[in-house]
């Protein structure tokens, strides 16, 4: 059974339609990246899957039941890290556990382990204002993963970072989130190929226009090289060409 099943999904904001009859499935442990021009409904799809908005039409089934806000099977990383500035890094990550009624002692231990896993174990008592953009990204990732979700939704999580930090996190991401299925929204073709098993391209009116295999299955040390290999370059070119075509359709 797939972890996520989207059937005939459409969504409109008033008169403006952003998704049209979209269907997709994500298998357990699979990573899918969504590319598309602005306004094609990529972020809307993530919000629909997270249960934060209700679709105009269609059905979303998550781990066998309908999508709803706050389900522990789903973790989401927003484009802005949305760390609470009045809480330390550790307490930002304990928050989902505190809300679920876990004791602070247990929550602290679990959150510290999640932060260590994403390479932010040295930041526990720091304020979000004191850490770098990359560290904030790692903290937001740890917060999304602290409830060990089956599906991780990533909405351009590294878009605001500098190129070097972003490249490093793109290289690390498949290993950081290992075990969870992921649905990544991005504008970056290379990022999509590096972190996903499948890359889907959404057209301007929110239909899947193209599907290209990603490079996630390749060992991390060889992934960048694979991206620059003739085959990787060909996949990038196909995606760039299709992106250009749907953006100007």
């Amino acid at each position: 059974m797939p972890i996520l099943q989207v059937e005939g999904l459409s969504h409109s904001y008033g008169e403006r339609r952003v998704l049209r009859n979209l269907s997709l499935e994500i298998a357990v442990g699979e990573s899918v990246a969504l590319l598309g021009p602005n306004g094609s409904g990529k972020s809307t799809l993530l919000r629909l899957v997270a249960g934060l908005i209700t679709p105009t039409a269609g059905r979303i089934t998550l781990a066998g039941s309908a999508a709803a806000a706050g389900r522990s099977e789903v973790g989401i990383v927003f484009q802005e890290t949305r760390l609470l500035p009045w809480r330390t890094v550790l307490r930002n990550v304990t928050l989902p556990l505190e809300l679920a009624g876990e004791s602070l002692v247990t929550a602290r231990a679990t959150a510290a382990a999640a932060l260590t896993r994403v390479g932010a174990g040295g930041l526990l008592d720091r304020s979000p204002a004191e850490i770098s953009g990359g560290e904030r990204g790692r903290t937001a990732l740890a917060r999304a993963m602290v409830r060990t979700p089956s599906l991780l939704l990533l909405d351009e999580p590294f878009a605001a970072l500098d190129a070097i930090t972003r490249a490093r996190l793109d290289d690390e991401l498949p290993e950081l989130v290992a075990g969870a299925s992921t649905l990544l929204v991005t504008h970056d073709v290379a990022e999509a190929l590096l972190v996903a098993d499948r890359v889907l391209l959404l057209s301007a009116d929110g239909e899947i226009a193209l599907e290209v295999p990603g490079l996630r299955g390749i060992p991390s040390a060889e992934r960048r090289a694979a991206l620059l290999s003739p085959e990787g370059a060909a996949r990038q070119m196909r995606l760039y060409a299709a992106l250009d075509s749907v953006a100007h359709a």
Partner: protein
Amino acid sequence: MRRLSQLTPLVVAALLLAAWEFGVHVAAIPQFILPAPSVIAVRFAEAWADGTMLRHLVPTVTEVTVGGLLGGALGLLFGVTLGLSGSARRVVSPYLVAAQSTPILALGPVLVLWLGPGLAAKVAVCALITLFPVAISTLVAVRDVDAGTLELMRSIGATRWQTLRYARLPAARSGILAGARVAATLAVVGAIVGEWLGGTAGLGILLNLARGSLFDTPLLFADLLQIAIVGVSAYGLVLLIERVTSRRIA
């Protein structure tokens, strides 16, 4: 450089006092019109030494503390309720504004009629005058929390109450405290106005005594100085709370 900027207000105050002292002597202004700062200082010390000031200070501080806390708590409650509920806001806001637009001096006699000339009426005046700034600042701060933060709270399963406790109130802290700063000084105004409506002791009563039956202008000014000290202390207390809570990143 920082020490110099900290000293500047004191230097300005010393210069103003010196000019006042000098001006009063040079222009030979009678003491019952405008006493010199040195005369006020001596009268201030005398009023403390003979117990006059303390006798009148205690009731005023009590009214400011009880009335301010009551008004602040009610303002917080109103502000949070109205900040969370659009329909409550539409129903209650016009009445809140109307109540605030009515001069507190006009409401005073009604409060004395209902609550008597004792502590209760003065506390009520203080509470009413402090309620509005706290309610409005809380309403705005709680209502206008960043939409992204609220979406985050929904995504991690927060209930309405948890969102209030973990996101809205901490995010609204500085807005609420800005209202509390205004309320702290208004509480002193409320206490003085309340005392003018009747009573036997309080800094407001002492103002009337010094101006009227005692005809003691230096005492009048010493009392004004004492009222200012109470106001600045109340304001300083809110600032202290603001500093202590801002350091507490949990």
